[in-house]
């Protein structure tokens, strides 16, 4: 059986090998590819961190954007691919992150590069009441419900003159930094946001919460019966995703410098997350990375097409969702299963133990 998911099913069975006495099994999560994957990711991250020394401003801006998109996509995937929470309202947290950054930095004198982290906490805090309300809805209606709530946040912000109303405000406190320092700090924050998003998903999946989520996804009733607190597990992952989405929102506006409600709360953000995850591979940690790169290349290529660009993206997403629901990562896995991150538990015979007992 080919397992496409990074996260295996909760009822994963041992591979068929010679019978070995119990106690001679070990649980392995690292595979040769995942060792390579993690090392490659760390090396890549290190290389990108030296970008200020050799890249141009626009290279750095590109990396910031890609990292922010990666963070957004990883978080959306954590919700939809592992927790069964398909939200169309993640723009609520992007906008909240952006505006919290603005208020903390410009109105309360917090350093913007500190404020962006506090903004993530604000987004996480806001997500609790939003989750409590939205969790009363299921499936498709949950999706539309989160969208309504995002609109509520948008309307409250856009009617608030202190926040600049419909025309928004500029992040003036960033003027305290010279351009070079600002760009460097923004890049570092973006790298932490992007790599951190991958790390969070991997850590969540390896944790008790990750097991609970996959149990719920495979069989909600069964998970409940096994003592999983479904509501708490979902709320926990919802809050984590909201906070990190808020951080990514802050990073995006550290770069854009100008916060406008219609763009910060645009549903297009969620459309991009969906596109990236569906193309790359829903329910895997590697998928959103592939998806982010494909999305960025496609956008670069199709940018002259105007409306046709979104028509093409939408059409690709529809076709992929029906014909290849596990995305590009799923297709690659059909050829040869691989895992870039150590999230799946496998049973392996404990060879060393046997060797010792033989001597």
């Amino acid at each position, binding site marked *: 059986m080919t397992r496409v998911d990074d996260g295996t099913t909760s009822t994963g069975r041992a591979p068929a090998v010679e019978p070995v006495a119990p106690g001679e099994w070990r649980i392995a999560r690292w595979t040769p590819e995942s060792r390579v994957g993690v090392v490659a990711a760390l090396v890549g991250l290190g290389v990108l961190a030296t970008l200020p020394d050799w890249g141009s401003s626009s290279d750095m801006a590109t990396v910031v954007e890609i990292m922010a998109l990666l963070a957004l996509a990883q978080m959306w995937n954590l919700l939809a691919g592992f927790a069964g929470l398909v939200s169309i309202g993640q723009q609520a947290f992007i906008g909240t992150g952006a505006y919290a950054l603005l208020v903390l930095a410009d109105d309360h004198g917090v350093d913007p590069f500190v404020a962006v982290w506090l903004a993530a906490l604000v987004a996480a805090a806001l997500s609790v009441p939003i989750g409590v309300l939205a969790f009363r809805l299921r499936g*498709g209606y949950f999706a539309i419900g989160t969208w309504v709530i995002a609109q509520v946040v948008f*309307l409250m912000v856009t009617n608030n003159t202190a926040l600049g109303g419909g025309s928004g405000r500029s992040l003036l406190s960033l003027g305290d930094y010279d351009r070079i320092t600002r760009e460097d700090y923004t890049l570092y924050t973006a790298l932490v946001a992007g790599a951190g998003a991958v790390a969070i998903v991997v850590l969540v999946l390896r944790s008790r919460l990750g097991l609970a989520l996959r149990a719920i996804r495979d069989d909600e009733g069964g998970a409940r019966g096994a003592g999983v607190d479904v509501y708490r597990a979902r709320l926990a992952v919802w809050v984590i995703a909201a906070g990190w989405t808020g951080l990514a929102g802050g990073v995006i506006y550290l770069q854009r410098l100008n916060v406008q409600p219609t763009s910060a709360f645009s549903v297009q953000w969620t459309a991009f997350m969906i596109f990236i995850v569906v193309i790359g591979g829903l329910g895997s940690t590697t998928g959103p990375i592939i998806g982010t790169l494909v999305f960025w290349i496609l956008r670069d290529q199709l940018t002259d097409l105007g409306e046709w660009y979104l028509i093409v993206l939408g059409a690709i*997403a*529809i076709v992929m969702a*029906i014909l290849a629901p596990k995305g590009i990562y799923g297709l690659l896995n059909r050829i040869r299963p691989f895992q870039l991150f150590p999230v799946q538990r496998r049973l392996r015979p404990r060879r060393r133990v046997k060797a010792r007992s033989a001597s």
Partner: protein
Amino acid sequence: MEWVNAVIQGILLGGVFALFATGLSLAFGIMRLANLAHGTLALLAAFIAYSMVDATGVNPLVALLAVVPIMFVVGYALQRGVLNFTLTGDPLTAILVTFGLAVVIENVLLERYSADARGLDAGSIESASIRVTDDIAIGWFPLMTLAVAVGVLGLLYLLFARTRAGRAFRAISDDRATGRLMGIDDRHYYALAMGIALATVAIAGVFLGIRTTFSPADGNAQLLFGFEAVIIGGLGSLWGTLAGGIVLGVAQTVGAQIEPGWSVLTGHLVFLAVLAVRPHGLFGRALPA
């Protein structure tokens, strides 16, 4: 007196929301399909009517005679050709596909009609009204919208309660597999249901277009309004949809009376209040599984 007027106008506005909500509720009730492209499809209908009026000069209400069957066929084909393949038990695929569809249709409309606001001119009926007192006037067109909403709901009630097809719809809604064992062609009936849903959304879209100006990006707001009406009224309740639409309409007009910018926000807040206090809606039986 202003407040009485606001409530009356809100009740009439509820007719439009009820029309939007009906098709959404229908698709969800029968196929467990939350159609995120519902609002954008209403805009598609409005633009088809716009093109017909533009080409032939007919009244948009007459154009409706063609737009409704066109949207029925679109709905049938869409369900049979695409959406039936998304009903895998996991709502995820349907959400992704209908959301993608909304993006595609909205941008096709943008490409074809640009982002300019358009309107449908239905002639003198748009401004005609019944004068009740000096402060209160009831427009004929909003009244007609509400009457049509009631009529559509009544027809659907008869269809589901009294006809053989209605029994088939209810059967596959309750249990698709058993319905199929009883010889019901579920794919055909699902397609019919989507056809009917889009026929109602065609009426909603054209009435919306007569009522106000519209542009391609307006569809999502209509989806949210229709959805709110469904939840306020209670899932699975046909007449609850009408009540939900009216509650939402009154919330919006009364909100606008308090402060002009608050119309939509007040509607959303009333929806959230209902969700918080009475999540199964005013007339619903239970939360969806």
